[in-house]
């Protein structure tokens, strides 16, 4: 079943055409990667999916409903969560609190009822705490749960971000360059973690990534972008041997000059 369908998205900033008619689909349960050289428009695409940017033209449908009709904070309740290129945890808040914020959309949050400690509110808060505790265990964060997130090593913060993203029980998780800043061994562990998250939590994953080894080992499908256009898509092996993709990454080789 198609979970996310992006059709003909255009986005222009001043004179720069960041996206020029990009379209792709993500099937439920897939790990799909969006790759491309710097400036290809991958992050712009992500920001359109998060509703930070309004595309100039095009449609995004998620689980059959129109995503572009939603406000940014309502994207999460639609079932899409994301992590960021430069980990953006709330650094002065504890790991537990960070994870709990990720579940805000699942909690009844009428301010007056919250202050009165209304039973339905405390019930949903308790359920959120239980889910947060489960995720903290899953990502092996129990020892640091009460420490401020800003004080943790980078790879640990990445796991906190994953836990926070998954708090809202999303159907689709967007990962923006998850391997950035990690060393070889950490990337390998991250790849395994992403695959097990997909299997254990049944979440579909769309990632933007530069780290080719990670992309090629974990993805079911790869979409390649260059200069705001999609130039190829398919399984990792198909993409690897695609002439257009090789040209985008390595440039024209003298022997292959187009006539």
């Amino acid at each position: 079943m198609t979970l996310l369908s992006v059709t003909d998205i255009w986005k222009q900033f001043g004179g720069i055409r960041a996206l020029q008619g990009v379209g792709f689909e993500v099937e439920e349960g897939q790990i799909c990667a969006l790759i491309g050289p710097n400036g290809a428009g991958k992050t712009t695409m992500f920001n359109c999916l998060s509703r930070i940017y309004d595309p100039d033209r095009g449609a995004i449908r998620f689980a059959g409903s129109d995503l572009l009709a939603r406000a940014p904070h309502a994207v999460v309740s639609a079932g899409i969560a994301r992590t960021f290129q430069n980990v953006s945890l709330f650094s002065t808040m504890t790991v537990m609190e960070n994870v709990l914020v990720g579940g805000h959309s699942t909690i009844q949050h009428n301010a007056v009822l919250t202050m009165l400690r209304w039973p339905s509110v405390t019930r949903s808060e308790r359920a959120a705490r239980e889910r947060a505790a489960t995720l903290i265990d899953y990502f092996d964060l129990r020892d640091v749960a009460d420490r401020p997130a800003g004080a943790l090593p980078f790879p640990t913060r990445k796991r906190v971000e994953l836990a926070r993203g998954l708090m809202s029980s999303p159907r689709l998780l967007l990962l923006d360059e998850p391997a950035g800043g990690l060393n070889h061994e950490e990337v390998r562990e991250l790849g395994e973690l992403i695959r097990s998250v997909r299997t254990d939590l049944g979440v579909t994953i769309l990632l933007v990534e530069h780290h080719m080894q990670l992309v090629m080992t974990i993805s079911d499908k790869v979409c390649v972008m260059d200069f705001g256009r999609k130039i190829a898509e398919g399984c990792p092996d198909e993409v690897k041997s695609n002439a257009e993709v090789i040209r985008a990454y390595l440039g024209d080789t003298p022997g292959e000059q187009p006539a």
Partner: protein
Amino acid sequence: MDTFIEQVVSGVMTGSVYGIVALALVMIFQSTRMFNFGQGEIATFTTFIAWSLMLHMPYALGFVLAVVIAFGIGAVLERGVIRLVEDKPAMSGVMVGLGLFIAFNSISASIYGPEPHHFEQPFTGGPIDIGGVTIGRHSAYLFGVAMLLSALFYAFFRYTSVGLALRATAADRTGAELMGVPTGYMLMLGWGLATAVGAVAGMLVAPMIVLTPNMMFFVLLFGFAAAVLGGLDSAPGAVVGGVIVGVTQNLVGVYVDDLVSALHVGSIRDPNQYRDIVAMGLIIVVLALRPRGLFGRAIVERV
């Protein structure tokens, strides 16, 4: 020694009001990164509203209604005025704060006039005696309300989902929005709560000094000092800062005379004038030694 203890105790009580004014300032600074210089004057205005209400109804009811009205004023201000400048340079926020100061001062003066109004005390009667220290009834009430309010806010921010969402919004608005927190609503809520806290401070202060359009001027100044002292991102720091400012003022008021005569540098005609100078001087010392305030967190930025 008795004088000393009595002055410390009464300083703690006055200071608790500075503390809750500071709490309101910190709440607004955290969420919208601006100093609400209008805080005190809005509190004065809502205290006048409470005064009008209390002509027709019992103290407790008037008190609660005034707090609700104050919440509404804060929320409407955030929606209508603050939202226009929230992504503008910091100086725009300063100007809006000063504008609110002047606007609400004028509104109070135009409706209620400059003459002092008598504001009701809920507990009247002689001072009470606790372990040899005499405390005015109103001071004890004021201290109790201030502490209860601080404790409630602490618990609210620490243990509830909405409190958490407010803190997340304060820490990183875009991040919070993308986590599904409706941050616009949170800012409105933050302003409403802060203004409600200010109204409580106004109603506690009014019986001690008299209710006039300018009554909160110095209270705001010392609340501001308390907030800086405690660290602008710390709610418990704000309350402790208030108490430190209150105690310092009182002790200086009593002992500056003795100190000056002991040093043989002349005499002082009005020792009370020095209270405020020393209280403010303390802030400068703290900021020089510890710029983030006593309880503030150091901001470390990756470059």
